[in-house]
């Protein structure tokens, strides 16, 4: 599913996120995000994008590292999962995380824009799937959804 760009001014977006996040409780609690992508360019862009909208970020290079993190006791509110990665790809990592009982929001990000490929990725247990790189509007909408779900 692709979100339409709504094009809110950036300062207004930060205000919306700020108000919602204060409503969650502690003013220091930030939404934590795990970026799972083998492409250093995507990792860098998403890291800066997520940090700019006020999220905490950590990044790993493949699905196995993401699974290992969860096995070691780590947990994140949001996982951005790339489709194609060496060692363990996005669908396999997503299936494994769901099989472990992980209920974090897992959003697929892929350069593949064929609907059938996105549907296959969704079937592995994603909450949603977007073409990468993500935009500020998309991330803002994801955070609003996270806040609403919580």
């Amino acid at each position, binding site marked *: 599913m692709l979100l339409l760009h709504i094009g809110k001014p950036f300062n207004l977006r930060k205000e919306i996120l700020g108000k919602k996040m204060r409503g969650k409780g502690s003013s220091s609690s930030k939404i934590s995000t795990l970026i799972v992508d083998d*492409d250093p*360019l995507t990792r860098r862009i998403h890291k800066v994008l997520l940090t*700019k909208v006020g999220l905490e970020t950590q990044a790993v290079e493949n699905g196995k590292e993401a699974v290992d993190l969860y096995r070691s006791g780590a947990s994140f509110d949001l996982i951005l999962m790339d489709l194609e990665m060496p060692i363990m790809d996005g669908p396999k990592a997503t299936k494994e995380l769901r099989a472990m009982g992980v209920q974090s929001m897992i959003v697929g990000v892929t350069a*593949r824009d064929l609907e059938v490929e996105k549907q296959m990725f969704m079937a592995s247990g994603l909450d949603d799937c977007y073409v*990468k*790189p993500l*935009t500020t509007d998309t991330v803002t909408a994801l955070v609003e959804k996270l806040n609403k779900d919580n």
Partner: protein
Amino acid sequence: MERNPLQRQVAYMRRSLFDQGYLDEQFVQLEDLQDDANPNFVEEIVTLFYTDSARLIHNIEQALESRPLDFIRLDDYMHQFKGSSSSIGAKKVKNECTQFREHCSARSAEGCVRTFQQVKQEHTILRRKLETYFQLARQAGLAN
């Protein structure tokens, strides 16, 4: 906003890159992410792209020398290249990547070889234009 001649030149050059189809909206997204915490973010990402794409170009060149051509491998490399190009808003490069992948689907060796030259050409042209742009922007003292 009052601009000096150099700043006007930078703004004009930037506008031209979009008007001539070299860059698309994704480049604006990168500019929006640039701030005091990441003051050279756009140039950093473009530099990262050119470092990474050199590796992909090398892989594709090697793959194009093998016989018979492995169109699946070629398509996979070009998929990565296209993805990276999209990440910086490199519109013409991305379009040439799409053409190459169509030739992979059609299993056309001649088409792949020909379009790969165009991919490299657009890749080089954009690099030169962006290098000039960033240099001018630095001189003008603008953030991007």
